[in-house]
């Protein structure tokens, strides 16, 4: 069992003397493309504690300073994937990013790149969801484990480990936002969709490998990934889409069967 030790008096006094700001400047990108409103920044002074997250700071603005700020959020614990945004230039989940770890008194939040803006920090996920659906994100096989005649599909822990990490995707879109190919190619499936294709291809219960490989074997499909690894850098759940894409490409190149 992990034991969390109480800080010693000397450590406590050190913590008090660290340069922790009490007030930070939060710059929020504001825009409303449907009404032709160009992007501009609104600045707010926010009181923060060392545990304050970026999402909490935005919600402080909504509650106390400007309720018109548009932001999408739900679980506040990195499970729903709703609050993805660009924080100080890098895609991250607002609920999962503490202001104290950004080491800056000025925090800039912008909508994620490579997604159309709905308003302010809220972006449109239509393309991501469409590409996710295109990958047939379900087990494909003739028989079923739910009928009374059939048995459950047994998997060993080793079988499970082949795809488990990729099933942790919360569809937050941070990987697509960081991807250099997504920055220029409007038709690219994106790391999220490709990683999900691998999640099902690697599942030994699934029989839809050929279908999925046919979908991704396209000029705007898997061949557009150049292994820049940015998707894996920003993934908040350790999904590692870059690995999934390279392993998936191994099937098409004949390295894997």
């Amino acid at each position: 069992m992990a034991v969390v030790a109480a800080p010693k008096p000397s450590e406590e006094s050190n913590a008090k003397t660290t340069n922790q700001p009490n007030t930070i400047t939060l710059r929020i990108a504001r825009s409303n493309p449907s009404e032709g409103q160009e992007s501009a920044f609104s600045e707010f002074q926010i009181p923060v504690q060392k545990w304050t997250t970026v999402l909490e700071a935005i919600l402080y603005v909504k509650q106390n300073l400007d309720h018109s700020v548009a932001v999408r959020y739900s679980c506040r614990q990195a499970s729903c994937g709703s609050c993805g945004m660009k924080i100080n230039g890098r895609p991250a989940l607002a609920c999962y990013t503490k202001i104290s770890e950004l080491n800056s008194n000025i925090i800039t939040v912008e909508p994620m790149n490579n997604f159309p803006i709905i308003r302010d920090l809220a972006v449109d996920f239509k393309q991501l969801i469409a590409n996710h659906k295109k990958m047939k994100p379900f087990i494909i096989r003739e028989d079923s484990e739910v009928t009374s005649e059939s048995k459950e599909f047994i998997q060993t822990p080793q079988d499970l480990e082949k795809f488990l990490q990729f099933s942790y995707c919360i569809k937050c879109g941070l990987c697509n936002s960081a991807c250099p190919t997504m920055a220029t190619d409007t038709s690219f499936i994106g790391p999220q969709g490709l990683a999900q294709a691998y999640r099902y291809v690697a599942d030994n219960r699934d029989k839809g490998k050929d279908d999925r490989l046919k979908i991704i074997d396209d000029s705007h499909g898997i061949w557009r990934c150049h292994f820049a690894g940015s998707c894996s850098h920003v993934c908040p759940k350790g999904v590692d889409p870059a690995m999934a894409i390279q392993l998936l490409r191994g099937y098409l190149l004949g390295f894997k069967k």
Partner: protein
Amino acid sequence: MAERLSNREGIKGMANPTRYGIERVAYWLQRLTGLGLLAYLIGHIYETSTIVNGKIAWDKMLEFTQTPQGHIFLTLVIGMCVFHTANGIRVMLGHGGIGVGKPGQPEYPYKAASLNYKQRLCIWVSIALAALAMMYGASVLFGD
């Protein structure tokens, strides 16, 4: 207009090597050196094609490559060629799923297995090999 509405980063974002670690720098260098080598290839075809205009034209072109600027350009070509080859081998192997790690249970703080030390080492080795080759090339070209 369409780009503004879709909020895509565009070429500016694609060509920005900062923010995402050494792997993104390698991606940027690979693209840059690829374009540089393409420019060299076109220049090289133009250079060698001057021979069809006779010996005088050919000698004139050769003289041009024997200038300090020509030597600097060739030194850069050597560096680009070595980096593009060495890093290209890393990327090609990675594309086949070789050296990108094995799937497993991710544990906090979630370090991506595909961005492992072997990949980073290969990138640094590619940069070091390119630097060494450039130094050797420069010493030969400027030696006399």
